[in-house]
């Protein structure tokens, strides 16, 4: 099946628009695409008529152009027939927004749809979903544009079984400055499932990182998914719900009792280099870190700060997440001392964490970061930046990013996230250095790279 019509359509039919209810999901979808997106959009309703001065087509086959994507928002009983019409009219694919299928016990309707579509090689997303957000082409979410928080265009594809979770993550992406390539809500995932999208996005040139929210896999589907993720050169992050143990079914072997659904998922994910996000906070930090750095580290952390307390807390966080903070040799310490400004030289501590003290200036950060980035013993550097340090300026982030581009060692920053320091935060974000809200957050980002092991 070819998914291009689904994700990059040039023409879009919205089937089921209402002539008298502007809040109908189909109308919301029609309006937002008509006003804001590039795909040409056609309204369809079997009664025909006029909507906002535009002609409403009574059948999809009446549309005078080839239709790439049909968005279907009609009553569930009618959906299989509409799918058949789309196939006859040579539409490229569909998003089925409508609910009322397997989730309420109407497996029969869902199965009819699937058998029609698979026979014809006709791809569709859903049913019972929000569908696809694919700027600048189109957006099938039935949420008014003005109510949505849209992240910047970027390199992370989000795929979610739950539409609500997806939209929520999108607003958090926007808040954290994480760029999104595409978002897909797959709902009942009757035909197109996580594995199909993994394979598609593995080849999508606009996507560098995939993040999935998964509630459950079918029989052996998890196995196929991790095997495919293991072969995929792009980082795959998975947040999976269902961590609490299931029912109290009598279990007569120790292995069955200890290898619960979640334990198995977690172990198998890491075996195949899938990055498991244990909660939504990790999902965000992992997306941010891996969208800046598609590389693995062993987890030997260098830390640069102007506050001893920040350094000590970072060391603790590293050790609780299985990352090491190697102590620098006397000779290395002496070498760094040589390179910093004379006021700092006398009072700073260089053992790792490197505490440059409140007297530090930009050049001291640069010298320390350059040195750590050149060391064999360190494979990732945390910069704990306190923007109220008098000698530090907002130019620092851009200069630090140059060090990454030369040395190739990932840098991760902490800046307190308050409005006043926005210019520092943006400095890092615009220069593609991930920047966390908290010390713990920087360490979480480093952990993402440690967990993202090539298979």
């Amino acid at each position, binding site marked *: 099946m070819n998914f291009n019509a689904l994700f990059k359509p040039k023409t879009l039919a919205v089937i089921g628009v209402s002539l008298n209810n502007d809040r109908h999901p189909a109308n919301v979808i029609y309006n937002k695409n008509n006003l804001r997106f590039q795909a040409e959009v056609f309204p369809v309703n079997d009664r025909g008529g006029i909507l906002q001065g535009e002609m409403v087509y009574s059948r999809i086959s009446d549309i005078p152009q080839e239709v790439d994507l049909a968005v279907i928002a009609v009553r569930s009983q009618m959906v299989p027939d509409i799918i058949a019409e789309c196939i006859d009219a040579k539409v490229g694919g569909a998003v089925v927004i409508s609910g009322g299928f397997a989730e309420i016990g109407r497996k029969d309707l869902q199965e009819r749809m699937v058998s029609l579509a698979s026979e014809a090689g006709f791809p569709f997303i859903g049913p019972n979903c929000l569908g696809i957000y694919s700027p600048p082409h189109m957006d099938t979410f039935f949420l008014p544009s003005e109510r949505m928080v849209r992240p910047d265009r970027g390199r992370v594809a989000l795929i979610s079984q739950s539409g609500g979770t997806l939209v929520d993550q999108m607003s958090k992406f926007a808040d954290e400055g994480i760029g999104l390539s595409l978002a897909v809500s797959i709902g009942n995932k009757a035909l197109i499932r996580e594995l199909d999208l993994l394979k598609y996005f593995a080849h999508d040139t606009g996507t560098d990182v995939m993040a999935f929210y998964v509630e459950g896999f*079918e029989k052996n589907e998890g196995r196929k998914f991790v095997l495919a993720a293991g072969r995929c050169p792009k980082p795959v992050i998975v947040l999976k719900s269902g961590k609490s143990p299931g029912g109290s079914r009598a279990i007569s*072997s*120790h*292995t069955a009792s200890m290898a619960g*659904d979640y334990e198995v998922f977690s*172990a198998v994910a890491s075996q195949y280099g899938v990055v498991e996000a244990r909660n939504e906070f990790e999902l965000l930090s992992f997306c941010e870190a891996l969208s800046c750095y598609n590389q693995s580290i062993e987890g030997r952390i260098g830390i640069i700060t102007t506050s001893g307390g920040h350094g000590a807390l970072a060391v603790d966080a590293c050790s609780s997440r299985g990352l090491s903070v190697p102590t620098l040799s006397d000779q290395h310490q002496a070498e760094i001392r040589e390179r910093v400004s004379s006021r700092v030289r006398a009072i700073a501590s260089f053992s790792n964490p490197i505490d440059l003290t409140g007297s530090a200036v930009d050049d001291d950060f640069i010298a320390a970061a350059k040195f750590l980035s050149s060391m064999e013993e360190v494979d990732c550097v945390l910069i704990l930046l306190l923007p109220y340090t008098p000698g530090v300026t907002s130019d620092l982030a851009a200069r630090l990013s140059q060090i990454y581009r030369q040395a190739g060692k990932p840098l991760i920053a902490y800046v307190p996230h308050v409005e006043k320091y926005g210019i520092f935060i943006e400095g890092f974000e615009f220069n593609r250095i991930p920047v966390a809200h908290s010390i713990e957050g920087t360490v979480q980002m480093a952990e993402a790279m440690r967990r993202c092991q090539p298979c």
Partner: protein
Amino acid sequence: MKKGIRDILSASKDTGWVLEPQAKHLFSLAGLEVPRFTWATTEGEAVRFAQEIGYPAVAKVVSPRIVHKSDCDGVAVGIDTDRELTETFTRFSQVEDFAGVLVEEMVLGLELIVGAKIDYQFGPVILLGIGGTGVEVYRDITLRMAPLRERDVESMIKDLKAGRLLEGYRGSEPINRSELIRLLITFSELVMDLEEFIESIDLNPVICSSTSCVVADARIMLKETEERS
């Protein structure tokens, strides 16, 4: 799959699990090391075998009703005399559906658990952990999807919190690592072949020493009959 293995599985269909003597036979057919054992149905047989392998010996009750033998006092270790063995035999013969006594040589070493489960989402998975009767108390275990590659096995051993015990701790000799690796890989291949038949397997304990890794107890839980083709 070897015919002997298939025969044991089909003979156990009705019970839903494989009795220990048959499970041991199955694993030895698959190339895993098990203690020398016999399945004695009379006291005479039990004593004759114990004398042949030499004391101390281990005796375990065999009954299709008893999945967890130690829960009902059905395991006796360190039996040193004929008399002790006959007494144990008599005691075991009181249990419901008594089907004999398994008599075997006593093996010493570090107790591990090696297990398998056919997971709904991920298919066959393999478990390695610190074994014995306290497995579910300590829960020092690690899991991987089968079939295991050698690097999976290496990382499993590294995962165990009590991994230092395997390397020889406070004067004890390290366990034979290459035997453990061989056991895990052989076991994982066997589990791939048994996927359609089994629900889970416990090899608990697997007793590891500097020379060998021996499957000292084994339990195979079969899939519900109606699911089996």
